[in-house]
């Protein structure tokens, strides 16, 4: 730890900030998508599932490039955001979006597994006891999906900490602004004199990931016990 430079502390802080923001941003969308896939019958459900899982199979750089096109000034969305004074490319917000997109399938998958374990009769019971669908959603489905939400969030958080390919394309590698731990390590690794600095950051990264994954395993076991 003694080999960490002040900019490394910024990278650690930014990594944690990005991971937290990406997790919080994804949660409502992840819950909604998992709910739609699990409980709602509609045309195009398979297409939705494919789109949601696409980031699992694509190289992160490809995702980053698509995001760059989508959020860049030349796209309708980018120009719309630009007109309203919102600039995303090469900002921390872009890093958050990149992390959220890359980790989104992990979140949806965890919530969905948990939702699929909910006995449909519990939902029927709730309806016959006078609960409207949104009441059932909030008082039955949401609490019973909680282990999935927590497990999915921890996975997305861990994935965000390690996110590199998509982030470097849309957010760049600006120290103190968008430089997260993986990018700082990449920079150190490119320099022959910074081996210890790179190793120190690697240890920090491993430590944070261990804590998060330990939390994830505990929640996963809780899910199994409940199931």
């Amino acid at each position, binding site marked *: 730890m003694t080999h960490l430079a002040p900019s490394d502390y910024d990278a650690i802080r930014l990594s944690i900030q990005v991971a937290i923001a990406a997790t919080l941003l994804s949660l409502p969308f992840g819950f909604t998508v998992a709910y739609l896939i699990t409980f709602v019958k509609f045309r195009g459900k398979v297409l939705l599932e494919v789109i949601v899982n696409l980031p699992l199979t694509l190289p992160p750089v490809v995702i980053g490039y698509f995001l760059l096109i989508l959020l860049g000034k030349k796209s309708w969305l980018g120009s719309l955001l630009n007109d309203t004074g919102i600039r995303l490319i090469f900002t921390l917000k872009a890093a958050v979006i990149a992390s959220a997109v890359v980790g989104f399938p992990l979140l949806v998958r965890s919530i969905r597994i948990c939702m699929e374990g909910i*006995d449909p009769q*519990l939902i029927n*019971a*709730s*309806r*016959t006891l006078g*609960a409207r669908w949104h*009441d059932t959603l909030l008082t039955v489905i949401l*609490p019973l999906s909680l282990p999935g939400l927590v497990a999915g969030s921890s996975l997305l958080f861990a994935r965000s900490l390690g996110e590199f390919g998509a982030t470097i394309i849309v957010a760049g590698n600006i120290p103190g602004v968008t430089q997260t731990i993986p990018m700082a390590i990449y920079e150190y690794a490119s320099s022959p004199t910074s081996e210890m600095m790179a190793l120190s950051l690697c240890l920090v990264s491993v430590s944070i990931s261990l804590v998060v994954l330990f939390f994830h395993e505990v929640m996963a076991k809780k899910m199994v016990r409940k199931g």
Partner: protein
Amino acid sequence: MQLSLTAQKRFVAFNISANFAVSGERIGIFGASGSGKSSLVSMVVGLLKPDSGEIILDGEYLFSSSKGINLRPEQRRIAMVFQQHCLFPHLNVKRNLLYGYTRCPVQYRTVDFATLVCVLKLDGLLSRNITHLSGGEKQRVALGRAIMANPRLLLMDEPLSALDDSLRFQIIPYLKSVSEQFGIPYLFISHSIVEMRLMTDTVLFFENGTLIEQTSSEQLARNRMGDTPVGYINLLELTGMTKRDGMCAYHWKDNELLLSSGNQDSINGLFELSSKDIILFKKHPEAISARNLLKCTVVGLFDSGSKLGVELQIGDGKLISEIVAAAARELEIVPGSVIYAAIKASAFRRLSN
């Protein structure tokens, strides 16, 4: 309660085509597994939409394909007790009980929580987690939760099927008393004739999604006596057990019955006795191994499939025995005949204390 239902529903494997009007407080829907009972109640409660037809409860349309009416389950005020208790695992007993109550419009809230807790003997369980309850306790909580929703109709979809025999007959008094005490009519679904006789007055008998007959639960049991391997099940409330010669002597009405000792050793209880286990004699036999020989009068005869049911008056008690037509001719049994019924001490089976 008046329920009128005309509904058609096509499934991949079979169709439901039901048409009936029924009134009463204790209605049964009887049929074998896969006869469409659960689908039918799902239509009544609003969890399954019929392809066409009408469902009218106490004059109000719950569903009408021609009028374009389909009330949502939460609008129907019909609570349901499921086969598996379906209690919310994230809520404790008290919060489960109050789930429907808090969602019930204030003007309909008539069931008193404290009374219900007392009737169902849930006092010590209120703060408990659902996972820490026994099967019988869970089903009592499920029943209480449905009652607390203050429904105008209670649907009980085989609520005893997941319980073992001893628990089933412990729960039945709760099911009956709660509904009677709070004045809530119910539809009771089961494939057990004994449960039907204990729980209902009128029974709708379904087979392959079609209504076969609408009759009393007693008549249904008699009609099906000849077709079932167990015959007609006589239900006997036995009291005041005393030990005698290694056997249990019970009072039954103004008679005394001897039962084999064993797992039947308790003071009172509800027992079942199959019509097949009652052997009839024209005259008093000299000596027989059966420990119960009762003098009785034939008060009625009825046909049931290939068998003949003989209704026997034994003091204040009544039993039904089954014989074949040839035996009836040989014994010259007609209403008014005085004959003897022999019952083995081991023929009785305890249902509950």
